């Protein structure tokens, strides 16, 4: 060590660890781990407390809790099928409207929009995302629902006569508070959610893939179907599922515009009810098994969300394996 004047201590001793360094590292890791574990704890607590609260209803009703269509608190009969149906139909309507529109917007933003339009368009979507759902509910109940009645009537008059399909366009309810209104409000609510994820998904399609399609003489649309979509399938399913989750869980906006009827009907212009809105509107005035049943609806909703997510993940994984091959 002649020229190494800077090297302080003799390296032989210097290489072993000094002071509390490794312990500080350890404590920090434990701290972060604890924060991470909190998620597990809270989630477990949610499941345990809600299931425990709901237990009287579950044990009383058994499977009929989700298969029976009769919600009769005075008789202590709690069959929530109508609300499950309501949640499903309303979410379905929301997806039917929101998915194509969101994908369209996302494609517009990633593939079509001239750069100077991109910024404003993104801002518009962000604005839409910034509107809290309760505001959509307010707008829905005070402005939209009454205005939609004549529109529904027109649809009923025009399509109501068609066999089978006509039943979907049944007699509209006089207040306009219906599955359809709730579905539309939800669609507007989830468009920014699906759009922003779809946009990210499309953005990750490698430039090279798009170039490859275009270099083969594809039109823009052919490029989108040939190069963009195959790459985005998994991501898009994820986006749709996230939107679906939000739609299924949305409480206030739906509660305000769905009309609170306990019925299963193909007529999308009829009023109905969905799980979260039943909970929020009835739990205050409930007690005993009734309360348990309402909490039980929450548990069922939660489980449904998880199941749908898991199923979607499985679908995505399989599709991705097929598309990308086992290697990638």
């Amino acid at each position: 060590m002649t020229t190494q004047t800077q090297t302080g201590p003799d390296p032989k001793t210097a290489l072993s660890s000094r002071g509390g360094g490794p312990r500080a590292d350890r404590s920090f890791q434990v701290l972060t781990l604890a924060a991470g574990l909190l998620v597990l704890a809270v989630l477990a607590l949610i499941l345990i407390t809600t299931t425990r609260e709901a237990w009287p209803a579950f044990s009383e009703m058994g499977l009929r809790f989700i298969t029976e269509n009769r919600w009769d608190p005075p008789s202590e009969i709690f069959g929530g099928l109508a609300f499950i149906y309501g949640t499903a139909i309303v979410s379905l309507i929301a997806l039917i409207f929101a998915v194509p529109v969101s994908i369209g917007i996302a494609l517009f933003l990633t593939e079509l929009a001239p750069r100077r339009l991109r910024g404003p368009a993104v801002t518009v979507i962000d604005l839409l995302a910034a509107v809290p759902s309760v505001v959509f509910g307010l707008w829905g109940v005070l402005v939209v629902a009454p205005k939609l009645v004549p529109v529904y009537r027109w649809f009923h008059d025009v399509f109501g006569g068609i066999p089978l399909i006509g039943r979907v366009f049944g007699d509209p309810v006089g207040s306009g508070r219906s599955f359809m209104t709730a579905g539309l409000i939800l669609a507007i609510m989830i468009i920014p959610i699906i759009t922003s994820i779809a946009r990210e998904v499309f953005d990750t399609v490698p430039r090279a893939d798009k170039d490859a399609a275009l270099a083969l003489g594809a039109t823009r649309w052919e490029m989108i179907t040939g190069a963009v979509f195959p790459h985005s399938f998994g991501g898009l399913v994820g986006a749709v599922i996230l939107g679906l989750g939000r739609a299924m869980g949305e409480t206030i906006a739906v509660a305000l515009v769905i009309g609170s009827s306990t019925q299963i009907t193909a007529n999308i212009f009829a009023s109905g009810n969905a799980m979260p809105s039943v909970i929020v509107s009835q739990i205050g005035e409930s007690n005993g098994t009734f309360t348990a049943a309402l909490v039980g609806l929450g548990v069922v909703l939660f489980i449904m969300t998880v199941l749908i997510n898991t199923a979607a993940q499985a679908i995505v994984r399989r599709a991705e394996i097929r598309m990308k091959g086992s290697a990638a």
Partner: protein
Amino acid sequence: GCGGGDDDSDTGTGGTDASAGASEYANLSGDLKASGASFPDAYYQEVITEFKGVAPNLTVNYNAVGSGQGKKDFGANLNDFAGSDSTVKDGDGPTAGSFLYVPTVAAPITVSFNISGVDKLQLSPDTLAKIFQTDIKTWNDAAIAADNPGVTLPATNITVVHRAEGSGTTNNFTKYLVAAAPDTWKLKSGDVVDWPASTQGAEKNSGVAQLIKQTDGGIGYVDFSDARASGLKFAAIKNKDGQFVEASIEGTTAALQGAEIAEDLTFNPLNAAGATTYPITAPTYILVRTTYTDAAKKDAVKGFVRYILTEGQTLAPEVDFAPLPDELKTKALAQLDKIQ
């Protein structure tokens, strides 16, 4: 604490006439949390506003969450007193013996409607029951026409609006139907009933009023005060004596005359006899605890309820409620002394 209460009362209540009572309320201080029935909400809020004038140090919050929630909060100790239109049953929350009923006011429950082109509607109990059971589906149904000779009724669909949540108003309304149309009405009575599928729910009395107002062909039951304040039209109901009577304070007062008062001060003025009686008249109560651990709280509750039963009664007609008959008022005041 409420230091200097006496001094405050002299200056603070200079404008009020009943100086003896005023000084009594002026001593009260703190916060009172209350929740419950939406039916008397308009009245209670009126009283609270006036009460602030005589008891400036006491803040009363009444939260019109509905009778059922009020009772539950009461049972869970989440409020200091509860408002309820219905009596307490097992599982409602409060345990028997831990509370007292104090009747405060009574009021009609209107059957409000929104039919374009129709201003006046008469309904007999049977027709009413059929409508709310959706046995009758359109406004030009023969049964309705029979109750309304000379009125042209449209073919509009009937939209029945009821309370989405458990409610004392529902309880009283369905109790009336059980009493007045025993052969027709199948849905029994209760805070919640098993409404037919195509009926619609809305929250609180004013939510029902809103939904009726928005819906051509809508009909529902709404407390008198909210119905009037929102400008709804309401039907004349055929009473026990066979007369069609419109909801009014007078009709209610008449109903109260005939009502029998139970030991615990609950009473039932529904479907009462008398030619001028409005038959769907409902009482409303405040639930107070028999014992309050906090003395200041006890005094506050007692003071506020006493105010309702005394000066407060004169406010009732202003917001379309009927004051209690004197006999009942005396008994209610006596009830307050049982609070420890």
